[in-house]
């Protein structure tokens, strides 16, 4: 998550790769909101399928890479579904229909439906997120937010620069833990590490702010090295995505 994903040339040239990140972002949000209106398992399951198929066909994401990204999250979705199936209150309700019985455990139809719907919803959300991440370069996302979304450049590029600095904090944390161990305190987690990390974060932020300031950041009007224009493909992606959402909800 923290290191930038290297998109292949095919991914960058694909329909989803060239579409405005803003359209993809808006679409992802629309799907999220739309899914909140249904308690059935069908619509999120369909949207999961659409997202993955679109990612492979229109985003040219290498299937293995998408699978590796999704596998741990799919496991999370499955365990959420399982927990809801087993610990549902309706299992204890004698009036609800029995679906299966494993020893003393009684599973009801209501519990199964809720579990399936929840699992499918989580799966849909993570699939959309994975396809978005696998077709969107962070720099391009910020460019689109500034140029098309009218997000202030000072905030957007500042946040991007901070995001690039996150891997350094990871290295700092490892060193802080090593320092504790070599001083005889054990490398286990300790609240003191947070203080060290916080001080480092402030130091990095200070240096970065100074460097950005020295390069005239925020000193006046600015131009852009990577112009992003609206294209007809953005309309295509937007309309297609909304249509998929509509079909999933109405069907």
């Amino acid at each position: 998550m923290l290191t930038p994903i290297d998109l292949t040339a095919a991914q960058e040239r694909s329909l989803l790769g060239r579409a405005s990140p803003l359209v993809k972002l808006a679409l992802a949000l629309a799907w999220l909101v739309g899914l909140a209106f249904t308690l059935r398992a069908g619509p999120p399951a369909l949207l999961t399928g659409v997202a993955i198929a679109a990612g492979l066909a229109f985003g040219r994401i290498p299937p293995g890479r998408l699978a590796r990204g999704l596998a741990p999250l799919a496991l999370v979705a499955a365990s959420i579904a399982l927990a809801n199936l087993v610990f549902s209150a309706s299992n204890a309700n004698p009036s609800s229909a029995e679906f299966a019985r494993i020893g003393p455990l009684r599973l009801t139809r209501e519990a199964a439906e809720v579990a399936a719907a929840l699992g499918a919803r989580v799966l849909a959300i993570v699939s959309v997120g994975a396809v978005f991440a696998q077709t969107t370069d962070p720099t391009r996302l910020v460019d689109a937010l500034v140029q098309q979304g009218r997000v202030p450049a000072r905030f957007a590029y500042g946040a991007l620069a901070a995001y690039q600095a996150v891997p350094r904090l990871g290295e700092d944390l490892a060193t802080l833990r090593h320092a504790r161990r070599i001083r005889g305190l054990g490398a286990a987690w300790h609240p003191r590490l947070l203080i060290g990390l916080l001080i480092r974060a402030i130091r990095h932020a200070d240096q970065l702010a100074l460097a950005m300031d020295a390069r005239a950041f925020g000193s006046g009007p600015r131009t852009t090295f990577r112009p992003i224009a609206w294209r007809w493909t953005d309309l295509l992606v937007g309309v297609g995505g909304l249509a998929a959402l509509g079909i999933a909800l109405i069907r």
Partner: protein
Amino acid sequence: MTFRYLGADRPALAGIDLRLDAGGVLLVVGPSGSGKSTLTRAIAGLIPRDVPGEWSGSLRVGDLETATAAPAEVAARVGILFQDPGSQLVMDRAADDVAFGLENRAWPLAAMRARVPDALGGAGLAGFERRRGSRLSGGEQQRLALAGVEAPWPAVLVLDEPTANLDPAGATALFERLAMIKAERRTTVVLVEHRADLAWPLADLVLALDATGVPIDLGVPADVLARSGDRLAREGIWLPTDASSRAAPETFASGETLASGSGPTNGIGADLVELRQVRFEYARGNPVVRDVELGIGAGERVAVVGPNGSGKSTLLRLIAGLLRPRLGSVRLDGRDPARLPATRLAELAGYIFQDPELGFLADSVAGEITLGLDAASTARATTLLERLGLPLERFGGRSPYRLSGGEQRRLSVATALARRPRLLVLDEPTFGQDRRGWEAMAAIVAELVGEGTAVVAATHDDRFAATVARRRIEMADGWVVADDGPNRGPAASHRLVGA
């Protein structure tokens, strides 16, 4: 020009008076804490704008008063390069980073597209447009940062210890670029640099500051050297003559006698550290340490050299049991250090990290010294602190994070040595040190070796490797490619019974 930081009891810079002609190169030298960095930030207009403090006098770039001018106006004329390459790259990819300063100055797109590859090429990074800054070597990162600073054609280029984090090859490449900039005579350069051998030949004018930020001398290099050379050396300033002679400083020479007089010296002792076929990788299939065979005896002093990213720091952490090898075995005093309980490990090994700040665990200097130590070790650490010029009466209550860089380094030395470890590991011990800090470090190493402690230091500092160390291990791309030590590995070494 004078500047005092808010809350400081004396000015960081006092009474600086100089004039630099356009196209000239000014070298600023001085011991740690002499206000060199303050001067660079003042020229770049960042002080007093971004830093609270008391400012008096006048500092002009061309006809522009930096203290009162609009930030955009100063930034349009002055570019500044800092010492840490990683923290000044703003954008992900090289071309975007070079363009960042141009965008901020509202260059038209066509002009940017023409200038960016040009600036990259000038810095020796032609074709690097799409490369990610985070995946470049330290030397490449610094040249990329230089390309970004140079791209908008600043009239004045300010460089604040640009080679501090670079390996010798990276430093040389950066100075080759600076020589080209000087030859063009289009840009005025203000340079702060510890590497006297590289910097002095480039300078038209040298400004020497003392430890309190007061000018000692100002003039052409040859004059300054002749007039004030001795004074500069006394103040702890490196001189161009130091590097060529490669002689050990006096303090170190005396330590040397002490070392050879009392106790084991050049690795004749049993192997204290033993590495067999050690391999380590952070990411699968991408080893950073490859099949290393190594034996280090008690009282040996070893320099580990090699370019940025060659695996030096990882090797040190493997030796000290902070990382566990993926393949092979590490033995420290006969046991696997990665499996030792922390208290036992701390008795065996001390470690001084490249950035001392990451090694601090308490809120005060006194807390650092007592942390996890018994009374005897605390007493030893307290004495050590006094010798290092950080007496507890004065510094005990201070936060370790508020100390200067040199003071932080000395505190970390005291904490690492408090337990009398049998192995001391140093990561870039002389990084950014002035002459005095360097000599103190060399003297401590010599003394420890006299007591039988093995010292292993990863370093870019040729002088340290040549004069303080007695054995040189060279790494490249994770391999040990050269080792002039007596015991190149357990197989070749004469391991003693029971070792």
